């Protein structure tokens, strides 16, 4: 299997993963708010490709796919999301995923990922190796003061840190233009931080931009900002009626020439891949995810007697 075909299958796995979760919300298997990365898979995939063991990733409320990218056990992850005895034994849920073995965590508080990631980076800077940290943020999060504070700190301390912004153009119902003065990629400028903007729907583009940032951090050159333009296919959360966005724009986002999967498929087809081979790839991806789900559903529910335990060690 070529690298690109492997990527293609991985993108499909991510999509299938999120779609299956969406279905589990509808069926009532999952309660509470659920934020999916549908449409944003290429960024997560690039992150996973560039990640090395020991790198830390601090993600957001929209972090399922980043968890996969970080190497979190998909079955434990899913079990947690479907409220079983999973990655966090039912206590974290999809917004609070913690996997210390993979130096991965998420937070449900907008902007809170940046300072914490800076700490992971600080610890890594002190060591001799090339480990780095990545802070994931949404476009809306860029208006949270924590992010500006952390950018300044990251430059002062030459932290091996990448600020990776998944710019899907919306913070819930508020369009980026209505919430962000100026271009987001410009936010790094005052601190003298290198910054790049790229099309996060295009796997090659995000691989290149993120790769540069990651290399810069590994070489101990300091932090970088990467703003990846993506589309949020679904509502802000599952159940969001999403009427604030024009139907047309939502349709356009899913068009094959824009959809990260559609784009990669077209490129593979251009390069001579067989339709059948690609379909097979997709089927395999979906079967894999189904397998994960089956395994996750076999996990027990968390023990209610432990519910209030574990506040302190």
């Amino acid at each position, binding site marked *: 299997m070529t690298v690109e075909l492997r990527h293609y299958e991985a993108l499909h796995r991510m999509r299938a993963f999120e779609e299956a979760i969406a279905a589990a919300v509808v069926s009532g298997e999952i309660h509470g708010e659920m934020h999916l990365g549908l449409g944003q898979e290429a960024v997560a995939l690039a992150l996973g490709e560039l990640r090395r063991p020991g790198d830390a990733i601090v993600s957001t409320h929209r972090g399922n796919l980043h968890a996969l990218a970080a190497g979190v056990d998909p079955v434990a992850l899913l079990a947690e999301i479907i409220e079983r005895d999973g990655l966090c034994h039912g*206590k974290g849920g999809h917004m609070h995923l913690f996997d210390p073995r993979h130096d991965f965590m998420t937070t449900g*508080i907008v902007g809170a990922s940046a300072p914490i990631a800076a700490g992971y980076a600080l610890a890594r800077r002190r060591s001799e190796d090339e480990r780095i940290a990545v802070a994931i943020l949404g476009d809306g999060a860029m208006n949270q003061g924590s992010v500006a504070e952390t950018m300044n700190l990251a430059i002062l301390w030459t932290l091996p840190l990448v600020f990776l912004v998944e710019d899907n153009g919306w913070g819930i119902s508020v369009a980026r233009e209505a919430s962000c003065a100026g271009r987001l990629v410009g936010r790094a400028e005052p601190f003298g931080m290198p910054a790049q903007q790229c099309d996060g729907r295009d796997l090659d583009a995000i691989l290149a931009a993120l790769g540069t940032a990651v290399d810069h951090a590994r070489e101990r050159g300091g932090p970088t900002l990467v703003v990846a333009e993506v589309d949020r296919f679904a509502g802000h959360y599952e159940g969001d009626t999403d009427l604030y966005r024009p139907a047309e724009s939502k349709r356009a986002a899913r068009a094959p020439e824009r959809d990260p999967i559609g784009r990669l498929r077209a490129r593979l087809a251009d390069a001579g891949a067989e339709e059948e081979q690609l379909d097979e790839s997709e089927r395999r991806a979906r079967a894999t995810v189904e397998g994960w789900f089956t395994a996750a559903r076999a996990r027990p529910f*968390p023990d209610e007697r432990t519910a209030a335990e574990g506040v302190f060690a």
Partner: protein
Amino acid sequence: MPAAAHRLNGSQIVARTLRAEMERDPSIIVMGEDVAQLGGVFGATRGLLGRFGADRVLDTPISETAFVGAAIGAAQSGLRPVVEIMFVDFIGVCFDQLINEMAKHRYMSGGEQTTGLVVRTAGGCIGAAGQHSQILSATLAHAPGLKVVLPATLRDLQGLLVAALRDPDPVVIIEHKRLLKATAETLAFGAPVEDLDAPEPIEIGRLQRVRDGADLTIVASGFMSQLAWEAAVELERSTGRSVGVVDLRTISPLDRAGLLREAPAAPRMLVVDEDYGAFGVCAEVMAVLAEGLGRDAPLMGRLAPSSPVPASARLESAVVPSAVSIAERAALLLA
């Protein structure tokens, strides 16, 4: 309850109340994340942008410190801001503006500076885990200078909001998500919502006894009062004991006189809270009674979470008080 009103849920009642008050008082402005275009993630500001325009209904960036602080400055310039912090869980990012600024300007200015504004914020459990399920009423009430109210009924949602909009001090209204989504028929108790267009205020700082009972009093606030009522009914049914319910309505300033007045009605008292138990509302209620009544205080117990709220629905219901767990705890006190 008029035909129109009884079908409305809590969010719709909030929106209607804001509308009526904004018609009355042109100094009222509404600001927060997703409040304008969308009308609020719970719909509690729906229709206001269309009616009052972008000058009075403002979507904000996700910058709670900036816009909560801005509400303070605007209030001190004669406006009456209603600022929405989407979930009370997010007060952490703007806590300084809440407790060191908003709460203290009157006191620190020796009474010269008035900061009249309303903070509306959603609280309570809907299966969203540790950072989206909190109440934090005691966190806010512990800081002197903030009035903190927790409506338990649709009418209280309306009347306390009206009172807050006419109060000279900053008032934080913690609106329970389940109340925002509830219609009258789904609630255990509550006065009808009478007049949507000229809503009457309900006095801030006064508790209400919502149910008489001679054997045990349950004291609660917000949506917990609804569950307390359900528990009281169930207890009376199953044990034949008579159980009253006192709804605090206001957490700060706490109605100490009201508590001292109501406590003697029954020899036992269970204090219930959805906010964390330690250093929380239950403790304050118990301390007021222990200090105020000494040996005449009722025998007291409390029920409140001792941990963050877990994600899984099963675990959540083991941490957060329910009608069932309230009844169980009350039964222990009665035994």
